[in-house]
């Protein structure tokens, strides 16, 4: 099968959905001529023009607010917030309009909006351009949370997100784009349903749930642990809301051991929620404490030596696994 990059997967998904449905349009900072700050939108401006690929002022509040107004009146906006770190700016629009309007109106409005945004450390971008903020959105009812780890997933999930009638936030890990990560993606059309985890590697001793970049580090750790005779099952939830907890619980029933690895700051992360679910709903299957491998509770530091220490890696995961097997 042909291989494409993570960024190309995103471009293709947008391209196909825009071709398919004239109500889909993009708006954001430097999405036009620039093609997205990391090139995720290359070529779309030329193909669809300035009406459907709209450069905005630096006005994240207006971007999300206008998306709400456009969606409530029949469009399917795909706004971009360049880095997820900037989601604090339109947070009120997300917290009080986007995620609540349908409910407050008694089910009368439909808000088919996909907010695309970059997450993650690893390129020396420091504290305000490197965060992983998915947990904040997990905690706000009314928005689905998508966090792909491969070009295949990125494309299939983005297409489903755009077709979904509810608000979605879609996180792109910048290192997967910059590396660039390549992966197999069929020429034929496909979609991936939101809410379906993917078992990225089967195993029987320990369940590791990981997201985005951490999926790759978990797989690398799993390969090393295999050499030591420890068999790891790596589960990529792909969407945190809806969360496919059944796949996780089924795996824990098999392995009896769970480690959750995400790049977020540990306290209050998506890893906490997954741990809490398993401690509540699959307690009897557990043979060992639930471990979390996360970034520390600090901002992301700049210096490469500090940033490396900050980011969870294979060694951290191997250590956590070793403590419970």
């Amino acid at each position, binding site marked *: 099968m042909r291989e494409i990059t993570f960024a190309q997967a995103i471009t293709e998904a947008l391209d196909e959905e825009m071709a398919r449905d004239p109500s889909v*349009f993009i708006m954001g900072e430097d999405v036009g001529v620039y093609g997205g700050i990391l090139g995720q939108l290359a070529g779309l401006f030329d193909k669809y023009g300035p*009406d*459907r690929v*709209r450069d*905005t*002022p630096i*006005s*994240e*509040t*207006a*971007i*999300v*607010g*206008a*998306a*709400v*107004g*456009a*969606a*409530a*009146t*029949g*469009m399917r*906006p795909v706004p971009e917030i360049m880095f997820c770190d900037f989601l604090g700016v339109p947070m*009120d*629009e997300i917290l*009080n*309009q986007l995620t609540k*309007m*349908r*409910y*407050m*109106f*008694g*089910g*009368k*409005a*439909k*808000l*088919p909006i996909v907010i695309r945004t970059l997450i993650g450390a690893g390129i020396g971008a420091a504290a305000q351009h490197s965060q992983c903020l998915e947990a904040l959105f997990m905690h706000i*009812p*009314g928005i*689905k949370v998508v966090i792909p780890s491969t070009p295949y997933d990125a494309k299939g999930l983005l297409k489903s997100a755009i077709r*979904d*009638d*509810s608000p979605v936030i879609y996180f792109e890990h910048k290192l997967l784009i910059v590396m660039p990560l390549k992966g197999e993606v069929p020429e034929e059309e496909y979609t991936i349903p939101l809410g379906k985890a993917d078992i990225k590697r089967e195993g029987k001793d320990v369940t590791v749930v990981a997201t985005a970049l951490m999926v790759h580090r978990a797989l690398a750790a799993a390969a090393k642990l295999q050499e030591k005779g420890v068999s790891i099952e790596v589960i990529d939830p792909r969407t945190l809301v809806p969360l496919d907890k059944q796949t996780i619980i089924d795996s824990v029933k098999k392995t009896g051991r769970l480690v959750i690895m995400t790049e977020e700051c540990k306290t209050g992360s998506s890893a906490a929620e997954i741990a809490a679910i398993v401690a509540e709903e699959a307690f009897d299957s557990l043979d060992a404490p639930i471990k979390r491998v996360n970034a520390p509770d600090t901002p992301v530091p700049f210096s490469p030596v500090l940033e490396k220490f900050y980011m969870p890696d294979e060694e951290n995961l191997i250590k956590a696994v070793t403590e419970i097997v």
Partner: protein
Amino acid sequence: MAIEKEKLIDMYHRMVRIRRFEEKVVDEFAAGRIVGFVHLYIGEEAVAVGACANLGDDDYITSTHRGHGHLIAKGGKTERMMAELFGKKTGYCKGKGGSMHIADVDIGILGANGIVGAGIPIAAGAALSAKLRGTAQVAICFFGDGASNTTRFHEGINLASAWKLPVVYVCENNMYAISVPQSKHQNIADIADRATAYGIPGVVVDGNDVIAVYEAVGEAVARARRGEGPTLIECKTYRHRGHFEGDPTPYRTKEEVDEWKKKDPISRFKGKLIEMGVLAEKEADEIDREMKGEIDKAVKFAEESPLPEPEETLEDVYA
């Protein structure tokens, strides 16, 4: 004066309907049958009615926490509004929204809103949608003097002006943001001056004169429909009641309130209509009775409507 008689009478109807609706809300709130935060529009009816008189059913409005007037002016049904205030299943939001969240998307009402200024970018978005879909729809966005200091005001109007969107921004300057007078919350006298910041027209209007509002907004709506972009219209007005029901209003004097009550937009309009020979005192009484009757029926509808089932709490989060 080129406004048709029916139009004028219809506007008068709507103003009275709003007033009677809200007077009833005062009583029901005092009686404890309506709970929560209830912000009344009494004294400001000319703004909503004058503005919305320029719109059709498929045009849009965004409203505020002080929304009853806008909703009624745009054609909202008083019985479904009252039922919502009573927290009933037959309310516009099935009891989920309450006063601050009433909406009727089918007739372009994109919701009252508990977040000050939130409607400003939303209205821009609705206008963008109209533009992208190639319709002649416009959006009117209502907001207060206090809202003109929010993030949404600046980013929303800038976007609308940069993109020449068909939206009219109607600022209801009632001189206070809760307890804070305009002179303390901003260093300008006319909010319309802020139009300069976006290269759009800014207009000051007597917000207690429904015809003045109607005409100023009418011009702006026409401009918007011509594709020339947004206008900022400031309507100077005053709320007769406290910020919300229960507000002890320590921040203003009785004299000030009395002064403004003399400028009551409904009596003024009535006087004018009588003077113009368009309305007789008797007809005015008739309209008043009619509206009272409608509101009594609305209360009865609300009273007799069923409460939602508790489990309905869990519905309507996702589409």
